[in-house]
């Protein structure tokens, strides 16, 4: 029986396979807004505005980081008497108190040390402890939430506060760059990922007029806005920064991403640590979707309805990516068994579109942050993984089963006469993403056990993108079975530096 002869099923399959290409295509459409991000800049409505800023830093065993980060804050090109740093020590067991004692001596009244005797309840709980103290006084006109490992550039804070001169703006963030001093291969992948997700994507969200998340590493709120969203961080989700961002916009205040300035942060240098961080983020996003269930695909006062719909489509395409990939793969395999030529044709079309989208997103992101491009250029094109790239390139370029895959199989077999089973190669190509995800989990497993080289090789072939997708699958699984919402702290070594 030919599936193609059953119009409804065929149509459904084609539709579902096309849906598989939709996240990439939506991302492409989103990135076409990038050249317009300058024109829609909020700079016109900004002004010289230097409010009194209370900087809140939650710290849990961060003794290695806090000295550099607080000292950088003391060096801001901003009126010193208008910046006060509140470090909330979440019952650290390391030598954080001793480091703070030293800093208190050095910087006097500009640094306030708050220590919780009972800690470990997560970042949000520590932040709320600090907010209670800050909001009980009249001093603060704005609140800057940051992480203990983040290093501010001298001009960063004033470039952020200038947007708060516009009363319609509730919160501002900036580009958080990967700044690990080490030259670890994983740091380079993360640096490029941030170039895509922040330097490029958040600029496009400025054009759309609705931001999904201002990173918790550098999130500035006006006092009015912060009090309006409750004066505290919601502790019911694992994505406290996304919550404050969406809540701010839901209440009618704009959120701005300031792409012209940056801060430096240390990102995970091991696959295990990265995995836990991404699972936490993905779980947070799933929870956020539920918390704001009534606001999706609805009008908002901060942007136009079509733009909001576009934003919502992007949000859900990323959130549901594991399901979209699974359904598209299943449909492609099903179609392969019923009508292989049609399946192949669809694979070719989607590869063609996917490759063009990837080339644009890749070049646009690299050119959005040339400094990162210089650092991560070998990792950037390999983001989807070598095998995915070979499949997609060979499918897009050749009318028969891929030239590159064909020759790779010949090379592996060691025989120049060996003819690869074209049909089976097709099936392999369709199933590859489902194979790649467990492989990335294996890479994480090996990295946790300190196996050298092999994790890197696996990620090189299977793809960093597949790793993030696998972490997203894990997050869904944990949410579905109601796993404990524990706060897995990302271990920081304090090796971050200005300039990476």
């Amino acid at each position, binding site marked *: 029986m030919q599936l193609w002869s059953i119009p409804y099923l065929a149509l459904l399959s084609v539709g579902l396979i096309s849906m598989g290409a939709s996240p990439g295509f939506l991302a492409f459409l989103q990135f076409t807004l*990038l*050249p317009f*991000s*300058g024109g829609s*800049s909020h*700079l016109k409505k*900004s*002004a*010289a505005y*230097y409010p009194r800023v209370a900087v809140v830093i939650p710290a849990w065993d961060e003794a290695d980081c806090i*000295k*550099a980060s607080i*000292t*950088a804050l*003391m*060096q*801001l*090109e901003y*009126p*010193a*008497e208008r910046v006060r740093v509140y470090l909330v020590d979440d019952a650290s067991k390391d030598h954080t108190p001793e480091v703070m004692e030293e800093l208190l001596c*050095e*910087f*006097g009244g*500009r640094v306030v040390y708050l220590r919780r005797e009972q800690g470990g309840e997560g970042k949000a709980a520590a932040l709320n402890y600090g907010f209670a103290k800050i909001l009980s006084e009249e001093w603060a006109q704005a609140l800057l939430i940051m992480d203990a490992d983040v*290093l*501010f*550039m*001298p*001009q960063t804070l*004033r*470039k952020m506060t*200038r947007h708060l001169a516009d009363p319609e703006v509730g919160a501002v963030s900036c580009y958080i760059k990967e700044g690990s*001093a080490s030259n670890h291969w994983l740091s380079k992948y993360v640096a490029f990922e941030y170039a895509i997700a922040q330097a490029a994507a958040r600029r496009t969200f400025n054009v759309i007029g609705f931001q999904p998340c201002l990173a918790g590493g550098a999130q500035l709120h006006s006092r009015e806005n912060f009090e309006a969203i409750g004066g505290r961080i919601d502790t019911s989700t694992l994505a406290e920064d996304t919550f404050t961002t969406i809540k701010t916009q839901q209440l009618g205040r704009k959120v701005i991403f300031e792409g*012209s300035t940056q801060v430096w942060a240390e990102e995970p240098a091991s696959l295990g640590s990265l995995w836990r961080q991404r699972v936490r983020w993905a779980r947070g996003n799933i929870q956020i979707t539920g918390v704001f269930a009534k606001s999706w695909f609805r009008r908002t006062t901060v942007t136009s309805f079509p733009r909001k719909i576009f934003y919502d489509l992007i949000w859900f395409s990323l959130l549901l990516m594991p399901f979209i990939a699974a359904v598209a793969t299943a449909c492609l395999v099903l179609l392969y068994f019923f009508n292989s030529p049609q399946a192949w044709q669809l694979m070719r079309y989607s590869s*063609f579109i996917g*490759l*063009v989208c990837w*080339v*644009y997103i890749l*070049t*646009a992101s690299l*050119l*959005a942050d*040339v400094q990162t491009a210089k650092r991560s250029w070998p990792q950037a094109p390999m983001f989807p993984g070598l095998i995915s790239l070979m499949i997609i390139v060979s499918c*897009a*370029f*050749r*009318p028969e089963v891929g*030239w590159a895959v064909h020759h790779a199989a010949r090379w592996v077999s060691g025989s120049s006469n060996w003819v690869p089973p074209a049909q089976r190669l097709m099936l392999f190509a369709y199933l590859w993403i489902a194979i790649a995800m467990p492989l990335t989990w294996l890479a994480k497993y090996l990295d946790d056990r300190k196996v050298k080289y092999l994790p890197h090789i696996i990620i090189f072939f299977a793809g960093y993108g597949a790793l993030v997708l696998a972490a997203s699958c894990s997050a869904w699984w944990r949410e579905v079975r109601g796993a404990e919402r524990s706060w897995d702290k990302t271990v920081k070594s304090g090796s*971050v*530096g*200005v*300039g990476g």
Partner: protein
Amino acid sequence: MSKKLKKSSKKAQLRDSAEASKVLVGTKADGLIFSESVGITASSTTLPGRVMDLPGSWWIPGKAMGRVLVGTFPTAAGVRSGEIKPTLVGGRRLGSSSPGVGVVGLQITAVSGSRYSARELDKLYTSDVLEDRGSGRNFLRLQLVAVAVTIAFVMLLVVANKVNW
């Protein structure tokens, strides 16, 4: 900072702090410190509290020790002032009246209580806006390059698919 030091520092035509990755501690003319322009990379090593080694030839009279130098450091490194600290050079302590050749330690100190006038704050804002407009135009140019690359790639893809290999 003493008036004398202020005056001599001015005479020395210290480089503007905006010149990233370069610092001119002083010139021979001011009688305080002699140095070539010294490269400082914007990294954590230039953060306050850290001692930087400045290579080159130095002659530092004792009176310069512990004096604060303002406006001679790269803004990119987040440093606005520094203090010269005695450092051992070849086993000999600098700061004596005899010249030392080798490496001098420069202790970067934190700026505290720095006050800006309203005019200076406005000036900072204006320079930021001008800088951002310039970098915004550059950003647009680079994004148009990305669009051109993609269009060229699509053409390549179409042609490659039409050619009979």
